């Protein structure tokens, strides 16, 4: 029998004592090797990308990015054990999607249980569809858009976004005179946005109503939106109907 390579674990928590506790609980497990620790969400995104750990202990309430946002940005769906002190919404979602989580403070026995389950899941590299559903499910409308650009993460406040354009498999997000690309479908982001502030005016365009300056008529039966930045966005016939009821 060949020796099984150790599981490589990353610990993400902004509190040193919380990380210390996980290190201590892991001491008894010879098959787990700690490859790194992160203090905040941005660092976690970088380290998950760079180290590709088998297992991530992920705190939910962290500065910069929450645990769920880290998963959204890294696309990681398996080998995650959430830790949280108190978050009613997250816990409800975990229960709903049968995702394992540790409630702080947790016992060694409870920790070992979660670890055993993670090991069993790791053997066949099975992606967890539960996490997909968990991340996609946002209760409140989107307040900021996260974009990963190689090693950098951009956080765009939602009121800075003037329009979103579908370009193949990507979204071009126009904000503050810049354009950011994010791999996402336009229908998906449309669902997450606040319907009173954003409107899908065209098959491939969503505009911010706060940035809308005028509706132009370049031709019979054709409409276009002029945004505050001067940018023009085509409006489809059904988009025009929706816009007329709103404005």
């Amino acid at each position, binding site marked *: 029998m060949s020796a099984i390579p150790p599981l490589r674990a990353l610990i993400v928590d902004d*509190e040193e*004592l*919380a990380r210390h*506790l996980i290190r201590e609980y892991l001491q008894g497990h010879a098959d787990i090797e700690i490859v790194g620790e992160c*203090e905040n969400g941005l660092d976690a995104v970088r380290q998950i990308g760079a180290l590709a750990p088998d297992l991530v202990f992920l705190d939910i309430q962290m*500065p910069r990015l929450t645990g769920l946002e880290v998963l959204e940005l890294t696309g990681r769906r398996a080998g995650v054990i959430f830790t949280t*002190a108190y978050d009613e919404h997250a816990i409800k979602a975990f229960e709903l999607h049968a995702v394992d989580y540790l409630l*702080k403070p947790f016992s060694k026995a409870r920790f070992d249980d979660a670890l055993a389950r993670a090991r069993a899941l790791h053997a066949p590299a099975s992606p967890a569809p539960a996490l997909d559903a968990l991340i996609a499910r946002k209760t409140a409308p989107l307040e900021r858009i996260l974009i990963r650009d190689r090693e950098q993460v951009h956080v765009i406040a939602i009121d800075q976004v003037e329009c979103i354009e579908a370009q193949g498999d990507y979204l071009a997000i126009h904000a503050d005179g810049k354009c950011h690309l994010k791999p996402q479908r336009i229908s998906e982001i449309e669902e997450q946005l606040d319907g009173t502030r954003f409107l899908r005016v065209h098959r491939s365009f969503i505009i911010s109503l706060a940035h809308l300056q005028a509706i132009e008529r370049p031709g019979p039966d054709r409409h276009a939106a002029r945004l505050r930045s001067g940018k023009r966005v085509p409006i489809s016939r059904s988009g025009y109907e929706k816009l007329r009821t709103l404005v």
Partner: protein
Amino acid sequence: MHPILADARKLLWYVLAWLLAGIGIAALLRLTEQAEWSGALWFALPICLVWSFVALSSYYVCRSLPYSQRRWPVALGLFGGASLLSALAWLGLGEAWDSMGRLVSHDKPFVAMTSPGWVMYFAAGFVLYLLSLLAHDVLVAFESVQAAARREAESRVLARDAELQMLRTQINPHFLFNSLNSISALTGFDPAAAREMTIDLAQFFRRTLALAERERITLGEEVVLCEHFLAIEKRRFGAKLKTALRIAADATDCLLPPMTLQPLLENAIKHGIRQVDGGGTIAVDALVRDGWLHIAVVNPVAADEAPAGGHGVGLKNIRERLAVLYGARARIAWQRSETQFAIEINLPADKEVIE
């Protein structure tokens, strides 16, 4: 709605009582030989049936004169006048009904009353309405006692809800469970620190519970509470969290609402220190000048962090609480620059009166 009309059972008993009164009147007519039994009953019962509904009006007469603001001459006048009026109507009804008797029974009235008979009948009408007034008065008094008891119970429930709400907002579960997790971690390698942290946590909650009940406390008491809070947070965040508390000696015995400074520090950590790589220092300055207590809290913030929504809610709560207690005499203002967040509170520098 009238309480008797609203309840079918009560109405039934009420009408039965009036029919009994009708039998009483018939018996009186018979005994004084004003009429035969059958005629007396034919006369009295329908009138009493009709009058039972007319007498319900006495409920509103009683209601118009609440027990608490009743003066006896007014009450006597009103009750007597109402009874007199109703007795006149009762007399009219009696005569009208009696003459109707001609139509149904062989061209003669139900009763052939003499004048003294009608006087007696009139007196009975007066007494019956007066009795009805008195009975309704008891009913109204009973109702108002019940309503008062209900109101009191309701206000007790409301007060307790408010208290619970206050405790819930003050005992931040996030803070509690994270602190317990830190203690759990410390027990493994620094039991003495774990013990200190447990004591700080206990002191913080004990003081929160004790102080929250009072309307105003001294700044010194608030600062002691904040020191326990900061001791806990320093264990959690380590070297990231530094504090500089500069409380002027004459400011410590100034009064302010409990939990005014502590939420500001909690915010400063949550939205400031935690978000900044490497942390920073929270500066608290309190001093008295020209009869005003000035408190300023300044903390670093992450430059690229969009202003978080949560910050505003906590501050608005404090602003509302201050407005309730001080009206326009309290001021709270905050401003955010690229790298720091500053809050200033100005209150009248009230001190406890020592007797």
